[in-house]
């Protein structure tokens, strides 16, 4: 286990990758001539298992790929779909790009925030609410995604029902680290 001292003098301690995570990352590494190229895959694999990417896992990825943790952090914070904070079991991504905006997204986002009692970006129960750029289904606007499922032609009624359906659950994403 390596201890890395950051500028803030907080030691970042590696949280070892699980066997499953390591195996999946190693498979992705075979697709590239350089280990670093698998950084995004590694972050996504850890997120699949843990729900998000913690500091400890980020350091473990860096060690495994042979790059500095700050490089992995620079990548992790660049991409919209890498979560550096825990998210709930159900991530509600509401498209806020132009076609959805025209077709009623602002009202839908306000409605979701109101029902859940949170601001966009926040978590309530088993739902994390996040605005997202264009989901590529503009003819079916307004559009959202719940985890991997795309919901088209969203209406206030549909949204209310989806929130009720997904609100209760185990709460936060139950990663291996928690179970």
């Amino acid at each position, binding site marked *: 286990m390596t201890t890395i001292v950051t500028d803030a003098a907080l030691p970042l301690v590696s949280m070892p990758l699980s066997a499953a995570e390591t195996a999946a990352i190693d498979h992705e590494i075979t*697709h*590239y*001539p*350089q280990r*670093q*190229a*698998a*950084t*995004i*895959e590694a*972050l*996504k694999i850890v997120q699949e298992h843990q729900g998000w990417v913690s500091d400890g896992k980020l350091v473990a990825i860096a060690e495994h*790929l042979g790059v500095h943790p700050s*490089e992995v952090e*620079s*990548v992790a914070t*660049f*991409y*919209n*779909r*890498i979560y550096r904070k825990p998210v709930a079991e159900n991530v509600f*991504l509401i498209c*806020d*790009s*132009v*076609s959805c*905006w*025209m*077709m009623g997204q602002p009202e839908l986002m306000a409605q979701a925030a109101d029902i859940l009692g949170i601001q966009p970006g926040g978590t309530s129960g088993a739902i994390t609410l996040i605005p*997202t*750029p*264009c*989901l*590529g*289904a*503009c*003819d*079916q*606007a307004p559009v959202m*995604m719940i985890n*991997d499922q*795309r919901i088209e032609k969203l209406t206030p009624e549909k949204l209310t029902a989806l929130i009720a359906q997904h609100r209760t659950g185990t709460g936060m994403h139950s990663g291996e680290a928690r179970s």
Partner: protein
Amino acid sequence: MTLALEKPLTQFLKADGTVTTLEEYRDAGGYSGLKKALAMTPEAVLQQVKDSNLRGRGGAGFQTGLKWSFVPKGDQQRYLICNADEMEPGTFKDRWLMEGDPHQLIEGMIISAYAIGASIGYLFLRADYPVAAERMRQALQDAEKAGLLGAGILGSNFSMVLHLHTSAGRYICGEETALINSLEGRRANPRAKPPFPQVSGLFGKPTVVNNVETLCNIPHILRHGPEWFLSLGLGQDSGTKIFGVSGRVNNPGAWELPMGTPIREILEKHAGGMLPGYGMKGFLPGGGSTDFLTADHLDLAMDYDVIGKAGSRMGTGTLIMLDDKTCPVGMVLNLIRFFAQESCGWCTPCRNGLPYVRQLLTDIEQGRGKPEDLDTLLAYCGYLGPGNTFCALAPGAAEPLQSALKFFRDDFEQHIHQGCCPYH
């Protein structure tokens, strides 16, 4: 057969949205373009694509054959990348092609890799297309099992592996040099050009990056020949194009139509015209980063050069309609908000300019605008414009803004004079 010859790209797309399998694709003549290509020299394949005058369908419209011809010969690793990072606001064509007919894309990629001498290909797919990812992954496995990928493809001495990379979401990944950085596991900042990727791209090796729809055209060009492809277009440009319409129309959607189809036909015949009670105020012809056009332009042909001469770009060919009950200032603000958020932060005009423009537009939209703001916005369109940045994100962001200031100036002025948004 008529369908195959008139609408090659969508001939195997099923109405129920399910995927065309390898068996179905082959039964209908799929992979025969590859077979034909492998019997030719790579140079001859490249010549066919050049002769077809195929232009890149990702937005820039660069000639595909010409792009390929910049790849140096010699004994070195070369890469082919498919840009499937479709994230231009208002664009939903590549997802449709990948979800419905993954083998068409794979066949296009193998032929293209053969033409440029690439033994490794990557499909760079955006994060938010899980269905496309699953179907492409399955199709890649099936193709490999059938000897269509891997060593000695179809008994030839051409070998190729094709990897699927699913991204983690960022608009700038659609810019080809940013995409290459992303594929190397880095932040997706664009690179300075030259060197162009064809000479020094992925891992410093010669690399060609082509859009999904571009690559999907390749098998058909090989199968039916460049002459046939040239004959498909109604005007100067060849082939067909997936055109789409979103916004307040009766029948939003996407359709494969001849290149050069008049805008009016796309809007009225296919999209069914504006919804009852709504008039058309303007439209973006090819995604969020194109200049507005108006009713005066409806009879123009959707051809790269025709739309270019009218002061906009055909871009991705997916129209976004602005109706007369939607605030044009609000619409531009929405677009600028997107571009400001998705800027990678590498160049100053983009990183600092877009948030400033966003603030000015927010002030105008919320009734705090000042008359001099309009001159400031126009000046910023210049600062954001071509020549000041590494890539086309900021110049693209300036396009809807500069054209809105031209066509909808009254609306901006009304906001400022009334101290509120007249559309609310």
